[in-house]
Each structure stands twice: as C-alpha cells, then as structure tokens.
C-alpha cells in the first residue's frame, strides 16, 4: 500500500488516506516493539525494577510543585526574606554561605535524603575542599545550591546566600539563591558563580567548535564586544589555561580529555566569576595532566582572586590544594578544618580512616586497613551516627543519636562525633596536636584522660 502510495505521488498530492494508515501501522509497530523491549529490560534486569517513578510519588505524597524548567524546586518556599533578615554565619569575607541545606531525590515516602542539614561557608579567594566517597552527596550539594539539580531533585530546607561583589556590572549585594527567580539566577550563574564538571565531553556541545561556544557565551553576556574582540578574548582565555589559541577551531572530540577540561575551565573563567565550583575536574585524567591543570588553576586563583569549591573523592590531593576541607559522609558534613589540621590531626574517626586509605609514597611500607564495610545505602541509613557500623570507636550512644556538627573548643574547626564532646576520653589517634591551632590559636583543649 505504501509503495503504491509512493508510486502515485500520494505524499506530494496530499492524498493522506493512501499513506497515513500504513504509516501509522509501521509507527505503532515500532513503538510497540520499543515498549516491549523496555518491558523485557525491566523484567530481566532486576536493577531497573527499583527505580521509582517520582512524579507519581510527588502526587501520592500530596505535593504540588510548580517547577520552572532548569531550576531545582524548593519545597515550601516562602517569599524572599527581607535583605538583612537572613541569617549569616558572621564570617565577614564570606562569598557563599550554605545553611541547614537539605536535598532529596523524590518525594514523600520514596524520598532519598541525599544531602541533610549541611552548613558551609566559602570565603572570598579561598579554596574550600569538599571531600567524600562517591555517593556521599557532593555533586548533589553543589548543583542544588545553584539550583541546577535535575528532577527528581528537590531542595527541602535551608538557605543559600551569595554575597556578590561583582568585578563587572553583575548584581551586587546579598542574593538568596533559594528564593531567586529565573532572571536573578541567570544573572548569577556562569557570570558570578561558574561550574566545571567532571565530564567535559558532556558539557561541551559536540557539533560546534570550541571557538563558537566561547563566542555564544560572550555574545550573550558581553554584548558590547565586537566579533573580533570576542575572538581575541577567547584566544586569551585559552592561553590562560595553557592552550594554543588555534584550538578555537577544533571540535570537542578532536581534543584530548585534558584539553577539553582546560577548555571548560577557560569557559568557566570567561566572565570573571567570583566563585568557581569544580566538581571532580581532574578525576578522569592522568596524574601528570591532572597536576598540570591543578597548577594552572591555582595560579589563576592567585591572579584572579576567585573563590573555589573544589569537590573530589581524593582526599590526598585536596590536602595539597585546599585551604580548608569539609568531609562529607552519607549526605552529612561530619568534619571541617584547615587542610593541614585535618591531615595531621583528624578529629573524626571517618576522616582518620579515610586518610588511612591512601598509601604513602615514602617511608616503610606498613599494612593499612582502609575502612571496614562499605558506604551506606541512602535509602536505608543506619540510625544515629551514619558512620557507626564502620566505626572502631562506636559507643551505644552513637547507635541512637546523630551527633551535631559542633565547633571544637578552642579552634576554628568543627566535628560531628560523640567522642569530641568532652564526655568521654578521646583516643590518641584522634587527639594529635593540631598544627594550625598551635601556631595561631589556643591549642585544642586536651580532654581529661586522653593519651596526650
């Protein structure tokens, strides 16, 4: 029938009754086979059976969300609080503050609490490291703070404040990102806070050249520049990250992984942001390339003065790189300290264990244990302290009550552990002298009965 239809010029002649029925049959058959295929997949691959259908979940939980495309919804969102009434940490040079931040995947009963009650303060010009194993919620935290998290991600509580002091004509003053509208978010994202993700290949458009992508970006945000000025600026940006300006003519797939990641960093720097969020920017790269890119990045930080939230699972790398490190586990922040303190004098059993997961490059080779067990499933979190099933020092209390992240007396660091609240003696491994406190502040108080 179709062939006859074609033979009779049915499409050109507009005789739909010739080609439409058989066409629909073919289309239906294709769709049917595809659906059957999905069905078989779901049946034979048991992993897929567990995936919840979140929209249905939202309705079932009685939550109606008016979502705007590309903006993570915030549950129970109120009007924007009056400026000045928002709580701040009191840190004077803060550029990004995150308070009581919680993020779920899904709604109601099926919700997975991927980030729970997190507090973070990024200071101007600082490198803040966010360390944690894969699945601990680092990416979720960072993307949700900019409201870039895709469905079924929902922000359920907290405050994200951006204290803007733009280099150019961007918005100034404190912006509450959780009550900001699409316009405000657009003005902040990329120009003031930019993000570099692990997989640059997915972030760059594969069908247009690197130069054209720079051009699009600059044209949208710097309309006053002429075409040749944009091209020149793009070249300068590539040069800044150690790439030849010729590369503007390349397509992303023609670049090596390291080059693509450099191009991404250059694009993230194009609008001179105040904050860069780097989510595992070098994890997929070889060590030599990783080191080169990190050296360049740190050089640029010194020169341009942006603050960076550097996310990685590689704590040993972070120690060399960051000013301050926050350790995340099962969606919670469990310790925060200056990098040197955290490395030489961890106060949290998990941090101590994590540091013991990286074999040293010097000295005698000694057996190391890593951490027993494996990271918890967020759908089925242990009660109390989420680390207790793997903790060598777990006490009965740890199984019942989750410890709060609290300042450790006499220092600028925080830890969430029942061992550090002063009620019990602290094990020697978790009471090593703090190199930072020793030099600048009061030494960390030595608890009675501790090994020191």
């Amino acid at each position, binding site marked *: 029938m179709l062939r006859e239809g074609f033979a009779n010029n049915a499409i050109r002649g507009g005789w739909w009754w010739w080609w439409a029925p058989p066409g629909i049959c073919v289309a239906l058959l294709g769709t049917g086979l595809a659906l059957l295929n999905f069905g078989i997949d779901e049946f034979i691959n*048991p992993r897929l059976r567990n995936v919840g259908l979140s929209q249905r979940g939202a309705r079932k939980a009685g939550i109606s969300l008016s979502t705007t495309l590309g903006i993570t919804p915030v549950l129970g969102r109120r009007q924007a609080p009056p400026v000045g009434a928002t709580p701040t940490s009191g840190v004077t040079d803060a550029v990004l503050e995150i308070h009581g931040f919680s993020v779920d995947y899904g709604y109601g009963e099926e919700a997975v609490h991927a980030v729970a009650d997190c507090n973070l303060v990024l200071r101007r010009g600082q490198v803040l490291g966010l360390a944690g194993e894969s699945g601990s919620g680092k990416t979720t935290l960072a993307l949700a703070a900019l409201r870039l998290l895709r469905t079924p991600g929902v922000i359920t509580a907290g405050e994200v404040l951006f204290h803007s002091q733009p280099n150019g004509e961007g918005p100034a003053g404190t912006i509450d990102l959780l009550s900001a509208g699409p316009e405000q978010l657009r003005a902040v994202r990329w120009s003031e806070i930019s993000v570099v993700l692990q997989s640059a290949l997915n972030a760059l458009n594969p069908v247009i050249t690197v130069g054209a992508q720079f051009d699009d970006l600059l044209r949208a945000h710097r309309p006053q520049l002429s075409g040749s000025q944009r091209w020149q600026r793009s070249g300068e940006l590539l040069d800044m990250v150690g790439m030849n300006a010729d590369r503007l003519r390349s397509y992303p797939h023609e670049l090596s992984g390291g080059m693509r990641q450099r191009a991404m960093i250059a694009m993230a720097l194009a609008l001179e942001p105040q904050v860069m969020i780097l989510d595992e920017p070098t994890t997929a790269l*070889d060590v030599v390339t990783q080191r080169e890119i990190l050296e360049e990045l740190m050089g640029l930080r010194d020169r341009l003065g942006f603050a960076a939230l550097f996310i990685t699972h590689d704590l040993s790398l972070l120690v060399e790189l960051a000013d301050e490190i926050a350790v995340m586990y099962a969606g919670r922040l469990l310790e925060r300290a200056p990098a040197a303190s955290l490395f030489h004098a961890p106060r949290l059993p998990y941090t101590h264990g994590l540091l013991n997961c990286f074999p040293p*490059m010097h000295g005698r080779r000694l057996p190391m244990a890593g951490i027993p067990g494996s990271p918890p499933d967020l759908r089925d979190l242990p009660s109390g302290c989420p680390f207790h099933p793997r903790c060598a020092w777990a006490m009965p209390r740890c199984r019942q009550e989750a410890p709060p992240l609290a300042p450790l007396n006499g220092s600028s660091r925080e830890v969430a552990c029942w061992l550090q609240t002063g009620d019990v003696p602290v094990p020697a491994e978790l009471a090593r002298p703090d190199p930072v406190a020793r030099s600048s502040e009061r030494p960390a108080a030595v608890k009675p009965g501790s090994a020191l």
Partner: protein
Amino acid sequence: MTAAAAPVLEGRSLIKSFWVKQGRGPLARKARVHAVEDVSVSLEAGKVTAVVGESGAGKTTVGRLLAKILKPDGGEVLLDGRPAPGGRPRSYAAQVQMVFQDPFASLNPVHRVRHHLERPLKIHHLADGHVDAAVADLLRRVALEPADNFIDKFPHELSGGQRQRVAIARALAVQPRVLIADEPVSMLDVSIRLGVLNLLAGLRDREHLAILYVTHDIASARYLADTIVVMYAGQLVESAPSVSLTDTPAHPYTQLLLSAAPDPDRARAPELSAPGAPPSLLAPPSGCRFHPRCPHAMDVCRSQAPPNVTVAKGHVAACWLHVEPALRRVSETELSTAVNASALKS
C-alpha cells in the same frame, strides 16, 4: 630479574599492534597503533608485579597478552619456562586468570552469585558433587562471610567492593597459579580499595599466587607490589623492587610520574619537569619515546632507543643518562656488551 626463583609466567619481547581506521568513508585507510613494543615481564609465585603507567601506555594490552586473550605479533609467552600452547586452551585458562576493572560489567546482572561461581567449577570439572561447599569456600577466601548472606544475591545487591570480590572468587574457582588484575580497584570507593588490595596480598602470601597488578596509581603499586614496572607509550622504561623504584627512580619519566602523584606529606608539590602528553602511538617518536618531553634529552636520545641499563641490583632503566658518556654513541651491537660490562663493574 633475579635468577633465584623461576618465573611462573613470563612474557619475552612482546610486541602487539592494532590496526585502526583513519578518516571516514572511502578515504579511510588503516593505520597501525604500536600499542606494545618489546616488553618483557616475568611473574613469580608468591610475588606481585605491578605495571604502572598513564592511560594508553599499553598496560591492559600487556595483561591481555599474558592471559592469551590477545595473540602477540612478536615475542613469546612462557608458562613454567615452556612456550605456552597456541590459542587459549582450557588448560591455560585454568592456570592464568584475569580480573577486570569494572566489576559490574564483568558480572552478568541476571545471575546470582552462586551461578557465577558454579559455572567455572562445572566447566572445569572441579568439585564434583560438592559444588555448594566449594562455592562457600571461594566466598570465604575472598572474605565474603558468612557465605549464606552472599550466595543468592544478584550483583546489583552487592556493593562495588563485594562485586569485585565475587569477580576475584570466580577467577580463583579454577585454582589458577597466576592472577592478572587489570585496575581491579580503580572503580571502587576509596575506603574499600585497600580491602581488595589486602585480599590480593593475602592470596599472594597464603596461596603463593603470582599476581600481575595493572594500575595507574603508583602509590597503590608501592603498597602492594614487590616489583614495579613502568610503561610509557608502549614500552617498558623502568623496573625495580617497588621501594627502590619509588624512592630512587632512575628514569626521567618515572620521576615525572612520582612528582605528579598526590603526596600530602610533602610541603609543596615540586614543579613538573616534563609537561605535555604521551605521543601518538600511530607514529611514535624515534629513539627514546620520551625524548620530546624529557628535560635531559640528548642527541643520541633522538636517534637511538636507549638500552636497558642495570642501575642497581634488580633495578633496570631504559635511559641514556645511565650509560657512560663515552659509550653513548657506539653502534647497537657493541653497545649491549659494553653496557653490560660497565654495569657489572659498578
């Protein structure tokens, strides 16, 4: 290296290239990727040998050549000093087993742990009649205890580390003498990597397996391995006992790798001595393949491949720096004798 223990499995002067298509459509032509060139490694019982290098260095290819999953273009694979049989007969697979990087991809998601472990037992007619006991024993050897908790699970119900343990148990089922582990921990969470490395160390110490540990992480190689060999652009550039290699690296590329690796103990990371990237293996550089990046490159490096020089006991580096200046220009045949003579003297 040492003549003391006879190697269980040995690769001698292995060569492998792949043919890849260049360009598209009718203009496409075949080009040759020199993936592995003249690589020799030997694995001893009760020892772990690590192969370290950046991605694309040819580490996986060496592992696959030794496992006879790939056929070498040149060189030979010796099992117990005898040329291994052609192809990959069952008798060879029973002695040399491979563990892969991605424990999810290597375990079929529709089968339970029991199935994965029973299959090799049945195929190789091991454990007649006592299959359940044999499976439980395998799980115990990889520290998945109690076995009843794991035996009827699907791969997706296990954590990454547990999956990799099942993959190792499956390799152990046929009672191999050699285990070739290709990046066995690089896809696992950091906190459980050491557990799997310690498991491999236990198999070496208790069961005297010969293990090839392929990795890009030189710190973990130092931790686990007895010997480390470093590969660059398809060639072996240095091999030594692991502490000697990491404490006193002799080859400029090894030095570069070490300076780039994260090391929180040092106050400041040293400046990288040789930035840049490994060369294309379609047309590798002449002479020493590292010469375009090497801060010490000399004329001779550009024209002639460096010889393997013994710089200390069991420590060999392929680099002209370790050849006496006067000997750096002689012809190749004279060279090897001269170099060996000078090495013996020192």
